[in-house]
């Protein structure tokens, strides 16, 4: 049941918290051979997650503490069944604890090069290239024009 963490992680969290967090993010977004993507517990992605706790430090700590409690003291030391149960119970009974975990995980997962390519994105920021958007055909408004003014006149 050993859960490793990448060495020399820059994080506000303790090693014990990071091990628990790695279990949670892996349960949230696991690797998929079918879609050719790593899980959120992948070394590179998890290193990003660990170093991106930032403003969510207190909320993440609170969620991990609750998970440890539900797992009988340590999510890391618990069996897979107990881990799954603890995660399910947090999601069901303590919904406010969940969004910070989801936000932290998705923010880092969906900027990984491999993941971006897999979902059809170019691996780049929006600026400076921007994107193309169809101009469309404004004659689609003809029925709206034909209806005439709808604003309320004021005397």
């Amino acid at each position: 049941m050993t859960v490793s963490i990448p060495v020399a992680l820059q994080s506000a969290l303790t090693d014990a918290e990071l091990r628990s967090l790695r279990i949670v993010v892996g349960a949230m977004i696991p690797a998929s051979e079918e879609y050719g993507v790593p899980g959120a517990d992948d070394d590179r992605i998890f290193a990003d997650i660990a170093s991106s706790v930032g403003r969510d430090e207190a909320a993440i700590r609170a969620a991990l503490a609750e998970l440890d409690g539900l797992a009988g003291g340590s999510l890391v030391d618990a069996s897979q069944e107990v881990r799954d149960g603890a995660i399910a119970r947090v999601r069901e009974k303590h919904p406010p604890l969940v969004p910070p975990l989801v936000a932290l995980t998705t923010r880092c997962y969906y900027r990984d090069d491999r993941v971006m390519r897999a979902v059809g994105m170019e691996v780049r920021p929006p600026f400076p290239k921007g994107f193309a958007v169809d101009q469309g055909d404004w004659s689609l408004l003809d029925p709206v024009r034909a209806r005439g003014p709808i604003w309320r006149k004021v005397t």
Partner: protein
Amino acid sequence: MLEPVDVLIIGAGASGAAVAWSLAETRMRILCLEQGDWIKSTDYPSNGRDWEERQFGDFATSPNRRRNAADYPINDDDSPIKIANFNGVGGGTILYAGHFPRMHPSDFRVKSLDGVADDWPVDYQTLEPYFALNDRMMGIASLAGDPAYPPKEAVLPPLPLGKTGTRLGAAMNKLGWHWWAADSAISTQDYEGRAKCINLGHCIAGCAQGAKASTDITYWPEALRQRVQLRTRARVREITVNDEGMATGVIYHDADGVEHFQPAEMVILACNGIGTPRLLLNSTSARFPRGLANSSGLVGKNLMFHPYASIRGYFDEPLDGYRGPHIGTWSQEFYETDLTRGFVRGYTYQFARGQGPVAAAMLGMAAGRVPWGKGHHHAFRQVFDRSAGMLAICEDLPEEHNTVTLDPVLKDAHGIPAPKVTYRLSENSRRMLDHAMARGTEILRAAGARDVVTDAPLPNAGWHLMGTARMGTDPSRSVVNEWGRSHDVKNLFIVDGSIFVTSGGVNPTATLQALALYVADNIKQRLSNLFD
């Protein structure tokens, strides 16, 4: 003591920039104090791979989450709608979507027309030239001929319809309901030194391209060229007064926290519907023990937001996704009062494109459409790039129990008491939100959505802060007069959303900037007897 100025403006956002530019031609000594700083276009999130993450960090809409040096905390625990703002040169326009509708003629006459709230002491016709001037200064993209408005000029061509606009427009035609190209503060052509939009799609975290009309790149460069001074990282603590009850200047903290007294002949507040009442309530004296300009007791009362409903649909084929401005088209089918709907007044739909992958995943997971575990990847691909929807922006009527007061405990980094917001959603607003979610679901079903998710009121959408220092002709029922001057302090003016009498069902920036230009014109025309 610092050199006195003729005009001291507090706040460099939407209205402060407009009033500074307009007054510049008088050649008076004009100084603006802004608690935030200039934001460089290279600092905006869309420059980097962490563009979505920073929307939850240093470019978050909540000052309580962002906690940048320029921010002050706001206790909004007692409100279902949380405050969104930005502090810096440009103010809220740095992070706004650029949706730029005007209020309607009927919005200024709600008492006369619908028997609710109060009429404004100005009307649409009076403000119309200021709306038009402001549209030119900001460079508004639009399409002339919108049947929901009196005729108005289109300064720039509209934003692209895209796949989203085309699909939703066709659905609106099927239903026989109004829709139109949205008026947008986004340049669709190179305009006055601003580059045209390249569809970065992340307007609400600042525009790296400079296509979005935030006032740091529209009004401010023009005002600075005319020798208006702008002093940043200067947080005003209080407005001072003399024995005659006239404002004498302000006390502010500079970037190092050092306190200064800045004397001024005239003070103009442009701090938004939270910051302005906060500053007035913090400016107590023997003559004004309840706060400055507060003989009516209405400073901080009648706080209005725009309660928002979100209606989002998921489609079988890809749409625009995160590409292009979020906004593009709107509908005002349900804007004007129709009591058969079960509520008075109305709302605008802002049709919206999709989101980036992070937002798509977060929203999908929050809505139960994207699971944890093995099914995550398949479900994500069903929502990412395949969503479109709308926000309904509902008119909020003024109620005195919705307030901005001073928090007895919370203070900012300079020890200045922080604002506390107390707000209850009215039954009228609740019904309007329910109506908007039901009709919005019809629209998305007509557009072919296979799944629709609704939510209201949106909790983190307290963008529009209005009514807390309302204008009026009766000093016992208003804080400023019909041209923005305080009833109590003859050399104190307010030009931000605080002076709104009602909220309309549209984003307020176009109207509050038109009002700021109108107040500035009144000041210019009355200079010889301005303080009488």
